């Protein structure tokens, strides 16, 4: 039994056999074979070894022609390993001794090798782990042949274990039998994490080298409540987790019963809870969870397909989200492309520092045609409901003015073409850079509403990459600088009569709810699955109490003090919830 800790990005408990995905999404369909099958399996192994050696031989010749001997020589070693009688002996040993299938034996031996290389002190030699991965992949592909399956054809529930998932791989999970996810890399606010959260099944990221420890078919527990993954649990642990899973399901069911009730404090202050969505269908999901509207529609997820979306496709997507919101307010954020959203290679020259690079509104303003197409689609869709449009990542007033000018241009285009659109659309902005936050007063004069985007705001305030698990301990919403910035923005907006909401992941974390409403926020937007719990919390406290908690939280000097205090106060209100 092995216990690894990471960062939970989606709560709950999942127990199932692991499916280990490599970059090519190969998975091992079965681990064990009968005694009679051992012989034929060994034949399969031998022919896979021979095919792999042939393939590399051909590739080797090709590389030698194009790049010379030096570059090609590493392939010699690949061939050397595949021809190595000791490798074959190790693999066959597992097959004969433990009745492992050829694929499982290959994967077990190669993962053992990867681990040994990873532990080497010499960095050049440790790098050879990648070569071993290459060899494993090639050999597995040849062993599995046609029987290689992808996760969309799983016959039973499984937990997905991988080094990393791309956003598009993550987006496909909802149509599979995957019940939990455990990844080596990633932090709580990476886009993979955001998608996993909206998918609503337990997930833990940043587990470092879990994927080399787990083989397909191993039983794995994903504990999204305690940031843990247990591989190969013993019977007592398994039993313990089964009962934990049952009580968590009961808790969620109880929360869903709150759907019809408003998020109102015990002393009668109403707080609006909105849903953050990536896909139009999630607007309906948000309503089912009791959302008062859609506070953040992340439109850049339209780009996850193979083709870029044209105006009609966008128009349809926006209309669908608006319809799903059933007349409630929908805040559409214009494309936040660049950085980790939409692969760098697809649209962008790789940048040395993409988070500080040409992303979000900057990218849109440099691609005005694309931007105008989106604005036209939003304007047209705005006729069908209660729609607001919001610009992301502003740092200067000039950007805001230019974005508004482009919106006016799009309106003129539509007028000229005689196309009808929502003329009275409210224009707002994300408050997510320290620069904009400190100029909040000036910005507030030129927008109808402000939405504090804490994911980026924290990242830029604390100089911490939110997707990098190596610095994840520096990334915290509890930092006094974050608290003070939010307080100042809310104050300025209230003074200026500008609608102010908060739409980062922080909004969905119960530990911050008292603080946020206590600071004066009356609109929070979060992953739809978080709405019931936040609602329960708001209904069980008074605004007087929340204001006192916020005031006290602002007196602390370190993030740990803030977190501990907020957790204790929250726990007092909801003693039974796993916070």
């Amino acid at each position, binding site marked *: 039994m092995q216990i690894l800790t990471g960062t939970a990005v989606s709560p709950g408990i999942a127990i199932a056999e692991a499916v280990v995905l490599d970059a090519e999404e190969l998975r091992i369909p079965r681990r064990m074979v009968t005694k009679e099958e051992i012989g034929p399996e060994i034949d399969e192994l031998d022919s896979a070894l021979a095919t792999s050696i042939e393939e590399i031989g051909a590739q080797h010749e090709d590389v030698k022609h194009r790049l010379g001997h030096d570059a090609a*020589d590493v392939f010699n*070693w690949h061939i050397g390993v595949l021809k190595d009688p000791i490798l074959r002996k190790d693999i066959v040993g597992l097959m004969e001794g433990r009745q492992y299938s050829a694929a499982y034996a290959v994967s077990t031996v190669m993962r053992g*090798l990867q681990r040994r290389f990873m532990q080497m002190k*010499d960095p050049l030699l440790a790098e*050879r782990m990648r070569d071993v991965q290459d060899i494993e992949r090639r050999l597995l592909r040849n062993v599995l042949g046609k029987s290689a399956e992808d996760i969309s054809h799983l016959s039973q529930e499984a937990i997905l274990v991988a080094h990393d998932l791309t956003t598009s791989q993550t987006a496909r999970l909802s149509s599979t039998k995957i019940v939990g996810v455990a990844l080596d890399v990633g932090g709580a606010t990476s886009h993979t994490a955001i998608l996993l959260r909206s998918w609503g099944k337990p997930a833990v990221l940043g587990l470092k080298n879990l994927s080399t420890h787990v083989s397909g078919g191993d039983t794995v527990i994903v504990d999204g409540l305690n940031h843990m993954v247990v591989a190969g649990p013993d019977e007592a642990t398994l039993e313990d987790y089964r009962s934990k899973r049952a009580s968590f399901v009961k808790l969620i069911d109880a929360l869903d019963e709150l759907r019809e009730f408003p998020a109102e404090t015990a002393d009668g202050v109403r707080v609006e809870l909105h849903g953050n969505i990536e896909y139009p269908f999630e607007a309906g999901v948000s309503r089912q969870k009791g959302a008062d509207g859609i506070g953040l529609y992340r439109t850049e997820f339209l780009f996850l397909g193979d083709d870029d979306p044209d105006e009609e496709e966008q128009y349809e997507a926006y209309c669908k989200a608006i319809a799903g919101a059933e007349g409630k307010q929908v805040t559409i954020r214009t494309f936040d492309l660049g950085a980790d959203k939409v692969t760098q290679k697809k649209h962008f020259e790789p940048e040395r520092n993409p988070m500080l690079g040409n992303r979000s509104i900057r990218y849109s303003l440099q691609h005005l045609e694309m931007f105008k197409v989106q604005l036209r689609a939003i304007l047209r869709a705005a006729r069908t409901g209660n729609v607001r449009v919001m610009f992301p990542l502003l740092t200067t007033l000039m950007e805001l003015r230019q974005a508004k000018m482009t919106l006016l241009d799009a309106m003129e285009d539509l007028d000229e073409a005689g196309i009808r659109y929502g003329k009275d659309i409210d224009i707002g902005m994300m408050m997510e850079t320290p620069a904009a936050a400190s100029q909040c007063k000036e910005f507030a004069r030129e927008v109808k509403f402000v939405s504090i985007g804490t994911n980026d705001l924290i990242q830029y305030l604390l100089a911490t990459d939110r997707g990098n698990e190596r610095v994840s301990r520096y990334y915290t919403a509890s930092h006094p600088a974050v608290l003070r910035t939010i307080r100042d923005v809310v104050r300025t907006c209230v003074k200026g009569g500008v609608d102010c909401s908060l739409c980062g992941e922080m909004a969905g974390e119960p530990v911050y709810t008292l603080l946020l409403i206590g600071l004066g926020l009356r609109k929070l937007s979060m992953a739809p699955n978080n709405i019931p719990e936040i609602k329960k919390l708001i209904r069980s406290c008074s605004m007087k109490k929340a204001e006192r908690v916020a005031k006290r939280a602002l007196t602390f000097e370190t993030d740990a003090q803030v977190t501990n205090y907020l957790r204790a106060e929250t726990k007092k209100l909801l003693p039974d919830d796993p916070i």
Partner: protein
Amino acid sequence: MKVVTRPNEPIAREVTIRNKEGLHTRPVMKFVDLAQTFTAEIKVRSLETSETVNGKSAMELMLLCATHGTVLEVQASGADAADAIDALAALVHEQFRLDRPNA
């Protein structure tokens, strides 16, 4: 370099890795390719870690993690053991003749 010979015992010789990159993919393959031309059983022991591996195994030699300056003991037993030791020790000493392409 010292030669140790005892009747009915494998013969062995100590060699030092002299090339900068250590026992990396290319040196490993040079060594394995040469070792395989002999019928003798070849073993390599790292004096740093005391680990002994099969000298004809591309995989195991790599796992020896022999960097620049590591002293290895090459052991051979069998009919052409003496020739094998001479040839392999010379290969290591000449920094695996990396300027010449692999066969």
